[in-house]
C-alpha cells in the first residue's frame, strides 16, 4: 500500500509470484483445510450455548464480509465504503423477492447476490472508466451507503421503513437453527477462502499482484488493469451480497441498522486490517481475534464503537500490513538470527 517506486514494485511482483507459484497445490490449500477442520469442531465444544453459538455465527459472518472486501480492496485497492449497503442489497433483495414475489427463498439468495454484484460492478466500472482515485471511489461509495439507508427508510411500503421486515419465507427452516446455520456460514467462509486462493494462483492473482504493486508497470506489461478491477468489484460484491442474503434469512428480521455503515463497514475494515489486508488468512485471523476482543469488552458494549475506532487508528499507525503478517515476519527474523548463530 505505501507508495513504491517502479523498481521496488517490480521486484515485489517477482517475489510474490515465486512464493505462490512454485508451491504445490496441496500446500497452497492446506491452510484452508486446517481452518475448516478447526472451526468445524467449534459447535462440538460450544454447541449447547446459544450465546456462544450466536457469537460464533456473527464472527463467521464478518469473516465472510472481510473475504469479500479482501477481493475488492485487498487485491485491487478499490476502497469501497459501502460494504454494508452491498450486503443490504443482498439481504433486502432476497427478502423481498422471497416474500413479495413468492419465489423459493433458496433461489432468491443467488439472485440477490447477482443484483449486489451488478451494483458493485457498476461502481467499479465507473471508477475505472472515469479513472477515479481512491478518494473519489471512497466518496461515491460512501454516498451510496447513506443513500441506500435513506432509500430503505423512505420506501416504507416496500421495506417497512425503520421498523424493518420480518422474513416469512425462511421461517422454520434449517437456517434459523444455530448449529446448521453455523455450518452454512462456515461452508460459505471456506468457499470464499478457496475462491480467494484460487484467484491468487490464477492469472487473476498474478495480474492483481502486479497492479497492486505498480499499476503503470502492470499496464505496460500488457495487463488489462480496467478489466481486472471490474472483475474484482463484481466478484467481491457478489460475495458481500450473498453474506447479506444468508444473514437476513438466518436472522429472520432485517432493518436499516442491520446493514448500517457503522455496523458493517467499520468492523469489517478493522477485521481485515488486523488480520492482514490482501492475505489469505487475514479475514480468519481478524475475525477470530476480534470475536475474542469483543467478548472481553462485553461489559463495555456501548463503548464498542469507540474501541473499534481506536483499534483502527492503532492498526493503521502501527501495523499497516496487519498484525498476523507482522508476527510471522517477526518469527522469521527470529529464526533467521538463531539459525545463523547455530551454524
Amino acid at each position, binding site marked *: 500500500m505505501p507508495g513504491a517506486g517502479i523498481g521496488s514494485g517490480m521486484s515485489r511482483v517477482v517475489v510474490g509470484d515465486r512464493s505462490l507459484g512454485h508451491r504445490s497445490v496441496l500446500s497452497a490449500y492446506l491452510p484452508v483445510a486446517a481452518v475448516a477442520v478447526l472451526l468445524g469442531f467449534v459447535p462440538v465444544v460450544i454447541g449447547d450455548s446459544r450465546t456462544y453459538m450466536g457469537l460464533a455465527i456473527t464472527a463467521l459472518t464478518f469473516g465472510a464480509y472481510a473475504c469479500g472486501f479482501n477481493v475488492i480492496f485487498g487485491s485491487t485497492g478499490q476502497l469501497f465504503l459501502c460494504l454494508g449497503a452491498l450486503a443490504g442489497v443482498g439481504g433486502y433483495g432476497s427478502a423481498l423477492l422471497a416474500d413479495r414475489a413468492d419465489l423459493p427463498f433458496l433461489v432468491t439468495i443467488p439472485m440477490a447476490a447477482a443484483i449486489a454484484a451488478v451494483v458493485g460492478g457498476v461502481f467499479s466500472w465507473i471508477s475505472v472508466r*472515469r479513472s477515479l482515485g481512491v478518494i473519489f471511489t471512497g*466518496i461515491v461509495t460512501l454516498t451510496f451507503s447513506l443513500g441506500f439507508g435513506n432509500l430503505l427508510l423512505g420506501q416504507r411500503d416496500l421495506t417497512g421503513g425503520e421498523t424493518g421486515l420480518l422474513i416469512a419465507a425462511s421461517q422454520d427452516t434449517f437456517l434459523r437453527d444455530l448449529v446448521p446455520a453455523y455450518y452454512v456460514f462456515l461452508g460459505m467462509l471456506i468457499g470464499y477462502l478457496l475462491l480467494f486462493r484460487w484467484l491468487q494462483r490464477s492469472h487473476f492473482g498474478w495480474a492483481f499482484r502486479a497492479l497492486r504493486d505498480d499499476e503503470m508497470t502492470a499496464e505496460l506489461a500488457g495487463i488489462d488493469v480496467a478489466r481486472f478491477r471490474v472483475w474484482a468489484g463484481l466478484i467481491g460484491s457478489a460475495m458481500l451480497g450473498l453474506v447479506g442474503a444468508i444473514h437476513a434469512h438466518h436472522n429472520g428480521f432485517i432493518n436499516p441498522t442491520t446493514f448500517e455503515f457503522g455496523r458493517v463497514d*467499520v468492523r469489517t475494515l478493522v477485521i481485515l486490517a488486523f488480520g492482514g489486508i490482501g492475505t489469505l488468512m487475514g479475514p480468519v485471523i481478524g475475525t477470530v481475534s476480534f470475536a475474542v476482543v469483543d467478548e472481553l469488552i462485553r461489559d463495555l458494549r456501548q463503548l464498542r464503537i469507540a474501541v473499534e*475506532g481506536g483499534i483502527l487508528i492503532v492498526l493503521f499507525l502501527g501495523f499497516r500490513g496487519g498484525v498476523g503478517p507482522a508476527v510471522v515476519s517477526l518469527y522469521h527474523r527470529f529464526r533467521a538470527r538463531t539459525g545463523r548463530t547455530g551454524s
Partner: protein
Amino acid sequence: MLAVFFDGIVGGLQLGVLAVGLSLLYGLGGVLNLAHGALAVSAAIVASLAMDAGWPAVPAAVVGVLVAAAIGLGLDQTIMRPVYRLRGESRVLLSLLLTLGAAFAIDGLLGWRYPFGGLSLRIGGGPVTILGVRMRSGSLLASAIAITAIGALTWLLRRTRTGRAVRSVIQDEVGAQLVGINPGRVRTLIFTLSAALAGLVAITQSMTAPVSVSSGFSLTILALIVTVVGGLGSAPGALLAGLLLGIVNALSSFYIGTYITAIILLAAAALTILVRPAGLLGRAD
C-alpha cells in the same frame, strides 16, 4: 415559496462554513478528514454541558468551539503526522482510514458518556419580517454568524501574510517551501481552523434545529457532498456549493420529502464526480 427559499439560504450559509475547512484541508495536504462531523458534535456537547453547569450561552458556545479546535489540533499533531510522510494515493487512503477511526472513537466516546446529549439553543426575540417573510430570530443570528465567519475567513486568506502562505501551499507545495513557507505549520493552522469552523456550525445549527450526539456522521457526509460539488480544494467553491445545495435541500424537503432530498443531495455529489470531478470552482487538472 420565498420563505422556503430563505430557509435554504440560512441552511446553505452554514453548509458552506462546514465544508470550507474540509475543502481547504484537501487543497493543502491532499487529505480528507472524516472526523469533521465528530468535531462539530464535540463542540455542541461541550457547549451543552457548560450551559447545564449554569454558564451563559455565549461563553459556553465559545468554549465549545475552542474545544473542537483543540481536538483538531490534537489530531493534527498525532494521527496526521504519519499521513503527511506519505505521498499521493497512499496519503489520501491513510488519511481516510485514520480519520474514520478518529470519528468513530470520538462519536463512540460521546455516545457512551452522553447518550442523550445534544444542543438546542433558544434565541429570544420575536420573528423579524424581511421582504414580507417572517424569519425566526434564531435563523437570522445563525446566518449573521456564518456570514461573519465567511468574511473573517476571506479576510484571512486574501489580506494577511498567513493567508498568502495558505494559498501558495495550495498552488504549489514545493514552490512555497522554496520561498520559506513551512507547509506543515500551514496545515496545522488550517486543520485547527477547520475544526473550529465545524464547531461553530454545530453551534449555529442548534439555533434552528437540535444537534444531537449522533449527528456526527451525517454532518461529515453533508460536508463531503458540499466539498465535492464545490470542487475539492476550493474555498469559494465550497461556499457557493453550500448555498446552492442549501436552497435545493430546503425546496426539495418542503415540496418532495426529506428522504428523497437526502438522495437528491447524494446524487448531486455522485453526478459532480462523474461529470465534472473538479467541481463547480475547482481547478481541473
